[in-house]
């Protein structure tokens, strides 16, 4: 009986130690649902204003703490090494991430507004939606520019 209790205690202590170690080794565990930290975003949007074909690209987003502000800043770096600024806001789990696509070439450029929810204890953004505002004017669109929808997913790196 005593040896059973002792074994249970040892297992409990081991489990608690493992849990504490995991907590300490994962900074995100302390971050809760706050967006701050390093993320990889996988974004899918149409190739162009007139294309029915989508393209998927991955960017890295380094999110600075926002302190007491409702808004925060971040940097996004694409796979070509272009880095641009980001403005973001968050209420609870809901985040909005806005940035201007880096468009070094002559192709159509756009602004992206990404809406999603931080889930999994702050580890991921699943089923995020993207509003794409292209640079091409369109009098028949309420925004007066071509728009499109896309999707994105975010995974915390740090």
């Amino acid at each position, binding site marked *: 009986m005593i040896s059973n209790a002792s074994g249970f205690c040892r297992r409990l202590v081991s489990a608690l130690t493992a849990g504490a170690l995991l907590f300490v080794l994962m900074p995100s565990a302390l971050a809760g649902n706050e967006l701050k930290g390093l993320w990889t975003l996988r974004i899918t949007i149409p190739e162009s204003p007139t294309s029915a074909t989508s393209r998927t690209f991955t960017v890295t987003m380094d999110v600075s703490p926002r302190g007491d502000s409702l*808004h925060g800043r971040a940097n996004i770096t694409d796979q070509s090494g272009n880095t641009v*600024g980001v*403005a973001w*806001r968050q209420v609870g789990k809901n985040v909005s991430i806005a940035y*201007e696509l880096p468009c070094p070439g002559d192709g159509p*450029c756009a602004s992206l507004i990404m809406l999603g929810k931080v889930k999994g204890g702050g580890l991921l953004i699943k089923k995020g939606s993207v509003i794409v*505002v292209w*640079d091409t004017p369109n009098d028949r669109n309420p925004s007066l520019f071509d728009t499109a929808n896309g999707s994105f997913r975010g995974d915390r790196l740090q």
Partner: protein
Amino acid sequence: MFRAPRLVAFLVICFCVAQAPAGRPGTLQTEFSLAGEWIVKSSAINGQTHSPRGLTLGFPDRDMLFEQQGDLRTGIVLREDVGQNVKPLGVWRVMGDQFSTTFQLWCPGDNGPCGSIVMRGRFVRDDKISGTMTAFFDLPDNSNPTGYDTWTFSFVGNRVATGATGGSN
């Protein structure tokens, strides 16, 4: 006999060469930048003062400050009239004489819908801009192509002269 035409041709060539660097400044490429402070006045398009779902931002003058550090182009709207810490953030880019900026709306309450702003415009001059702003509210609207409540209005902006104190509103 042949000297006069040659002299005239020579003078014409000299004239053209002399005029080339100085003439027609309007055709020279000007690199525009939003960097600096701007007072932006907005107004309704075709009397549309609200979004289809009844949301509005009103038409306050906006005191906007844009900065550039390398490739990082950031913006901030100064709204000390609303609160000391009210500083909506944004980003921007310039393509020739056109520009695009994207801002987040400042929504202190958890209840109402929030949104983001996309400004599209062009430089009328180095110190004057005009264009349209579109608010994409976080409110579903299936009648809109994006699926979100959308409201567009126009704006005109004037650069605050360096050294001047821009009032915020």
